[in-house]
């Protein structure tokens, strides 16, 4: 893993090459490095880290989303990069709001992101511009809502105990 100084060097390199406003933040937590970038420049940063950086990270292992409610901006998308040669991992993170959930898609750089970006769209509603097949993948096609957001209800039904079994309507009523 790049250590704290290595992470700062990477951040400085990216800022220098792609502009100062791309890298928003760096975090180094429990030995893992995270680079937070702003959503519009995700594709450029990943392309730079894949091909041109001093230390490249040519493989994308995972694209996942999460919901940071109540912190704004709410939705986060994480890209987990790997370099097999140096056995190095770097996490690139970006955060978008629910009102404007647009992130450029990286499917042409990393074909592995195809299913994974569809899953992030399905579960959180983050729209990936340029994705060849922007459909839901896990939920039924006509489902409304994005289930894994924190304010989406858990669903299911009330567990019946003796104290409430007469209040809960059954399906045959």
């Amino acid at each position, binding site marked *: 893993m790049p250590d704290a100084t290595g992470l700062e060097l990477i951040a400085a390199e990216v800022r220098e090459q792609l502009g100062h406003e791309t890298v928003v933040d760096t975090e180094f937590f429990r030995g893992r490095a995270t680079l937070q970038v702003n959503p519009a420049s995700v594709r450029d940063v990943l392309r730079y880290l894949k091909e041109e950086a001093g230390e490249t990270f040519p493989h994308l292992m995972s694209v996942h989303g999460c919901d940071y409610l109540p912190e704004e901006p709410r939705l986060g998308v994480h890209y987990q990069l790997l370099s097999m040669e140096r056995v190095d991992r770097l996490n690139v993170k970006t955060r978008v709001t629910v009102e404007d959930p647009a992130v450029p898609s990286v499917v042409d750089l990393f074909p592995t992101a195809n299913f994974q970006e569809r899953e992030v769209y399905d579960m959180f509603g983050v729209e990936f511009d340029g994705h060849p097949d922007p459909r839901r993948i896990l*939920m*039924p096609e006509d489902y409304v809502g994005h*289930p894994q957001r924190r304010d*989406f*209800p*858990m*669903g*299911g*039904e009330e*567990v019946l105990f003796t104290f409430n079994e007469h209040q809960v309507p059954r*399906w*045959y009523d």
Partner: protein
Amino acid sequence: MEVIRQAVNGGNADPKDLRINQLRARQLLRGELEGEDLDRYVEDRMGLTTLEQAQNWARANALFPLTFGLACCAIEMISVVGSPRVDASRFGAEVFRASPRQADMIILSGRVSIKMAPILRRIYDQMLEPKWVIAMGACASSAGMFNNYALVQGADKFMPVDVYVPGCPPRPEALMYGIIKLQNKIKGDPTLGWRARYNAKGTEELA
């Protein structure tokens, strides 16, 4: 060496003795049994039953399960039919058919998600009467520990279930017990229509 003599055509021969049975069968075929011997021979070998009972006995002992493995319970189900320890073919349920038209029992092994439920119902409808359903595992019986948006809370919300086998996943022995319970249910039950069995008013199909 002791030699024991016993009369065959007399009252005290052991009816289960194989040699005596062979002798009697040969006599019958040759037309040599008459009168009382013939009556006794026929009585020993005839059972009286009704057509329904015979039918049920045949149906119970030759169940054709449908291959319907959904999730982890499917692995235990395959262990029931595959593993030499608990073997469903001892009880006649060995032939797993892939086509619902040829199967009469569906073992719902695994969690039923909302995307899968209409497909499952369609497969159940394609099966021919008489058909039975075993809900194997906690997820098929009642969604198990997954009380959330993505699962149908129990398969009995949209299809009738005969036997519920609890467990997560149930041991192969438990599933075997469930199959035997289903067999007893088939043999003992006077009506085969499930709508009469469950007093399921309002579920008639109109099309």
